[in-house]
């Protein structure tokens, strides 16, 4: 198509008879074709994504909805309509509520410490350290290990009897923890795997945001006599808010889908004898490919989606009010701050009119 476009352009340009100036020549066959080309090609370029998305994304999503209202027959490959029965079934199962509790517990245990650590490490990396790239790469080393591999290593370290963690606890005179029997302990172990893999990743995202903070702020603060810690809490942390919100939302979406780590936490892979670390995704797998009940699995998938939507909305709401709160606390919106710095610059330039507008 591309190559055929070129040649016609020339004959078409010379085809209109003789002298009459440029304007009529432009409406030749070639330009018509190129107008078509211009109009159509954007759609051609984006079509692979949309075609594939419709087949492997949109259709399955909608069809999950259809299946969730059915009692699906594996062998015939069709289902009978049962209304909301599958939803009612899933919601009536104690296992579902266990899974919901575990998912949230693991999510909180993995997000909160992770962000605190990430902010701290990013602040360290934001200094004028030697061998910057090397440290940054070092922080990212865990990210290249597959979650399955991480889970295998950590579930070994968190072994109930011979695990290194319990051995070390014993060394300092503490009793061993039942990492695979106690609910909360298992959540800590699984959250540790998540934290191991993702802290470095989030650190780099936060580091990028930190480096975007104008260095003049720090210089001004230094001149005003603020120490490193004070600068961190009054300048760095407030500037990070949008990025923190972004990180929280992405890790929420990821965290609510957690599957690999709990699945690999023990040999059975069923989420513990008492559903101690059964998560929603793991439960979905059990319903669908353990009990081979696709109707129930589909209903759970939709419930999970709704939960994600609700949490997303709550997140957005909270983060928005947080941002507003920030504006209220230091009494300046971003526009005001910008205006202030502009005014300050002008003042410096004019240099004669130093009328303490800052105080």
């Amino acid at each position, binding site marked *: 198509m591309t190559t055929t476009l070129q040649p016609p352009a020339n004959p078409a340009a010379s085809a209109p008879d003789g002298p009459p100036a440029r304007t009529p020549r432009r409406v030749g066959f070639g330009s018509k074709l190129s107008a078509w080309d211009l109009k159509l090609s954007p759609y051609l370029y984006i079509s*692979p994504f949309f075609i594939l*998305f419709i087949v*492997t994304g949109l259709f399955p999503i909608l069809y999950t909805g259809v299946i969730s209202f059915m009692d699906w027959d594996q062998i015939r490959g069709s289902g009978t309509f049962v209304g909301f029965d599958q939803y009612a079934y899933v919601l009536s199962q104690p296992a579902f509520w266990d899974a919901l509790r575990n998912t949230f517990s693991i999510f909180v245990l993995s997000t909160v410490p992770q962000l605190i650590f990430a902010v701290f*490490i990013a602040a360290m990396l934001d200094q004028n350290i030697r061998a910057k790239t090397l440290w940054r790469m070092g922080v990212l080393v865990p990210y*290249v290990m597959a979650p399955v*591999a991480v889970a295998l290593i950590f579930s070994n370290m968190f072994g109930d009897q011979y695990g290194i963690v319990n051995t070390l606890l014993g060394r300092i005179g503490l009793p061993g923890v039942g990492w695979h029997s106690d609910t909360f302990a298992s959540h800590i172990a699984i959250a540790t795997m998540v934290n191991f893999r993702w802290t470095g990743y989030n650190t780099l995202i936060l580091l990028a945001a930190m480096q975007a903070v104008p260095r003049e702020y720090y210089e001004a603060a*230094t001149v005003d006599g603020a120490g490193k810690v004070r600068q961190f809490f009054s300048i760095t942390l407030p500037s990070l808010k949008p990025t923190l919100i972004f990180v929280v939302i992405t890790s929420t979406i990821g965290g609510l889908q957690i599957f690999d780590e709990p699945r690999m936490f023990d040999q059975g892979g069923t989420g513990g004898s008492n559903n101690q670390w059964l998560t929603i*995704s793991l439960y979905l797998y059990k319903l669908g490919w353990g009990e081979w009940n696709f109707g129930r699995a589909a209903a759970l998938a939709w419930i999970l989606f709704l939960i994600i939507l609700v949490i997303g909305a709550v997140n957005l709401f909270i983060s928005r009010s947080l941002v507003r709160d920030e504006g209220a606390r230091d009494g300046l919106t971003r526009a005001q701050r910008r205006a202030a710095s502009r005014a300050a610059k002008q003042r410096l330039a004019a240099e004669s009119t130093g009328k303490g507008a800052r105080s």
Partner: protein
Amino acid sequence: MSVIDTSPVTAAADPNPPQRQSRARRPRAVRGSRPGWFVYASLGVVLLAAIVPYYWALLIGSGDSSTIRNTELSWIPGGNFFTNAAAVLNNPAVNFWTGLWNSIFSSALIAASVVFFSTLAGWAFAKLRFRGGPWLLVFVVATMAVPTQLGVVPLYILFSEIGWTGQIGAIIVPALTSAFGVFWMTQYLRQAVPDELIEAARVDGASSFRTFLTVGVPAARPAAAMLGLFTFVTAWNNFFWPFIVLDRQNPTLPVALSLLQSNYFVDYSVVLAGVLLSTVPLLLLFVFAGKQLVSGIMQGAVKG
């Protein structure tokens, strides 16, 4: 940055007494100064924490089956790593080599395809005007929030209908394009290519696709490299869908790994030797391309 500020050129060009005065106490306090031991010590601890699990895998993976029960810890690797590794590599129940090949093949193909289609779509969204464009872009971004779990049941039915369950194609086809990739390339191309360049190409009579090839593709190269890396790592480590749709005979590496933690193996030395083996390919990739990966994450964050 502070270096530029204090450079003689700026100071001379800006005859500014207050700045000059403050310069005296600037150099030490400003962030240009080297940090103290605390920073390096903290970073050292972080680095140690990042490496310990790898080392632990080596420690256990190089011992024999009794190592794990040994309460007297030894921090020196044993001599059995290759025996354990061989036990994984040669075990017909694990299909390690098939898994390795499948992982390389599928991840490379997925990465190449995502890069190509994302560049194409990103070019359209960033630089071409067409009816519904902005709206469609919003749609693409919105699809990123949809969980994988929402589609797996019908997708599984679909693939078992056409007989693709257990086939590597079942994990390749759904991953050939990515919403994140389209978004990423759109963001990048939007600011990487000046509109004048496209107009110039048009005036020269280049077709739309030719413009894309001669103007868009070269400009997209750095972002494409990073997107390719990311997609490769993500595809390589992906587990949920491959675990559902693939079987023991034809696994990817994570699926093969998951088989290690089953009734077949109670010997943790063998399991962790296998884990370590499976991470070698990505560690190698990281050694060569880690710098790119780092800057990719940092760049994505600024724009995302």
